């Protein structure tokens, strides 16, 4: 892997590009003499967009990593376990039941529902344990689709379908200052994950190993799922559904650097942020001056990597 210095340099370079890509023309030189309109675009639009990309990308990758360890399956992630869909259902419930609910309440509702959903998923998976590892994400995807359909139905019933379209497809173009800040909730969670990284690695080695080292396996799994649910909820409420980051990034890294959570957590956060950033820039450039939502780009890229992973699954999973 690259040296941390180089990693930061690459990320900084891409971030810099991201700040100056867009319909409104702002060049780096303009920074020194921003007109009123330009400064508005820069500080309300571009900068929040960049920050939300970095936080969402890195935290979702870390959430995927944790989820894969505690469920001992390489193919689960907030996307393939249905967590994101449960989050969406939670937001719909919050919007329907408590109109005008504050964002923090929406995150709370999304988190509560997605926690319930993930535990339900876990219970189902435990019933089929010992069967093919590929079956687990398929169950998650099916369950997620059902929940997604349910959420869409309710949204349709209560006439908030347009509202919900933005959660259906992650889109950073809707991010503006004052509307995304809840996403920062994920930052301390990532530090927490780093602090307890070894616990997640040990949980990934199985119940027996965890117990023989004096750890409570169930408690680690619950704590991990709580982190995953919170990160996913913050991301769904803040920027929408960003698919596949949590699946691709940890798996690609594990091939080179192994499964030790502490060893790859930093790389995971870095690569997650970089991946989302590059996909976002690509989405803004491909049909310039229009935009392809990040959800579409990542779905295409993610699905391809997912297939490759499943095909070569016997080697690394």
């Amino acid at each position, binding site marked *: 892997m690259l040296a941390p210095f180089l990693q930061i340099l690459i990320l900084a370079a891409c971030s810099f590009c991201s700040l100056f890509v867009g319909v409104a023309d702002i060049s780096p030189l303009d920074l020194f003499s921003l007109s009123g309109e330009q400064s508005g675009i820069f500080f309300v639009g571009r900068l929040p967009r960049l920050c939300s990309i970095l936080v969402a990308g890195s935290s979702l990758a870390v959430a995927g990593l944790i989820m894969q360890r505690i469920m*001992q399956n390489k193919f689960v992630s907030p996307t393939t376990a249905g967590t994101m869909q449960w989050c969406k259902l939670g937001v719909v419930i919050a919007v329907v039941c408590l109109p005008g609910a504050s964002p923090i309440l929406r995150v709370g509702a999304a988190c509560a529902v997605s926690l319930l959903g993930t535990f339900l998923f876990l219970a189902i998976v435990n019933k089929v344990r010992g069967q093919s590892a590929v079956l687990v994400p398929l169950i998650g995807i099916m369950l997620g689709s059902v929940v997604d359909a349910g959420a869409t139905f309710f949204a349709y019933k209560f006439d908030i379908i347009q509202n919900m379209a933005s959660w259906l497809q992650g889109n950073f173009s809707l991010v503006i200052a004052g509307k995304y800040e809840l996403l920062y909730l994920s930052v301390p969670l990532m530090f927490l994950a780093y602090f307890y990284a*070894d*616990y997640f*690695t*040990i949980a*990934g*080695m*199985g119940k*027996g*190993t965890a*117990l*023989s*080292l*004096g*750890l*409570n396996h169930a408690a680690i799994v619950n704590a991990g799922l709580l982190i995953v649910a919170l990160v996913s909820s913050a991301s769904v409420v803040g920027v929408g559904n960003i698919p596949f980051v949590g699946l691709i990034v940890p798996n690609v890294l*594990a091939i080179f650097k*192994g*499964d*030790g959570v502490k*060893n790859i957590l930093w790389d995971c956060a870095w690569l997650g942020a970089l991946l989302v950033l590059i996909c976002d820039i690509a989405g803004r450039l491909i049909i310039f001056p229009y935009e392809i939502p990040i959800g579409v780009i990542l779905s295409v890229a993610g699905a391809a990597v997912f297939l490759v992973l499943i095909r070569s699954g016997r080697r*690394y999973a």
Partner: protein
Amino acid sequence: MISTESLSKKYGDKFVLREVSASLPENKITAFIGCNGAGKSTMLNIISRLIPASEGCAFVDGKKVSEWDSRKLAQNLAILGQNSHNSARISVEDLVAFGRFPHSGGSLAERDFEMVERALKMTGIEDLRGRFIDELSGGQRQMAHIAMSIAQDTKYILLDEPLNNLDMSRSVKIMKLLRKLAREESKTILIVIHDINFVSFYADYIVALKDGRVKYEGSSEAVMKSEILSDIYGMRIEIEEYKGKKICVYYQ
């Protein structure tokens, strides 16, 4: 000391362990022998709190296993279960270092690194340290797991079929290592083992189980008898002397 008091384990109505009371000698290698399903692993797993007992209890240093703080127990007792094997993609060095977790809580101190080095050296897998365990052979992975248990540096070491997957030379190496740990470092070692000739050569004490009960128990010398072994395994086993050691011949 490790002991049990009318320990029973049943799944549904079926007893796999039935009122076992035993107290095992300290600083010795104790081998659990018996047919498949005789209850050997079950007994080891209950003693090491991996599974709960149905009735009765197991004691470690006079304290009920269920009353031990899990981490404290992990500082005193290491267990390598048959199913503890994992093929997570972590390096041998990291795996062995996790053996220090009950002591270090995650941040390794000088002494922890020393213990990891020592365990790698004792098991002779220093050259594998950088390899991922999912890329090792079954035997190499087994050695790495044994090294992890040794790095845990506990008074009691429980190993469920440690010789699984190992070739003869590695098997001998492990048994010699265990004997050294028992003799020189006063460790108490409990192993489940199927090759009774290894038992004959290396074990000090034998607990022979049949149908969930302890049928025979005693020093190696006392239990290694043709009629006892034939009864335990339900087949004719003859014993020959070879250079003062007993060799079981059961190939018919």
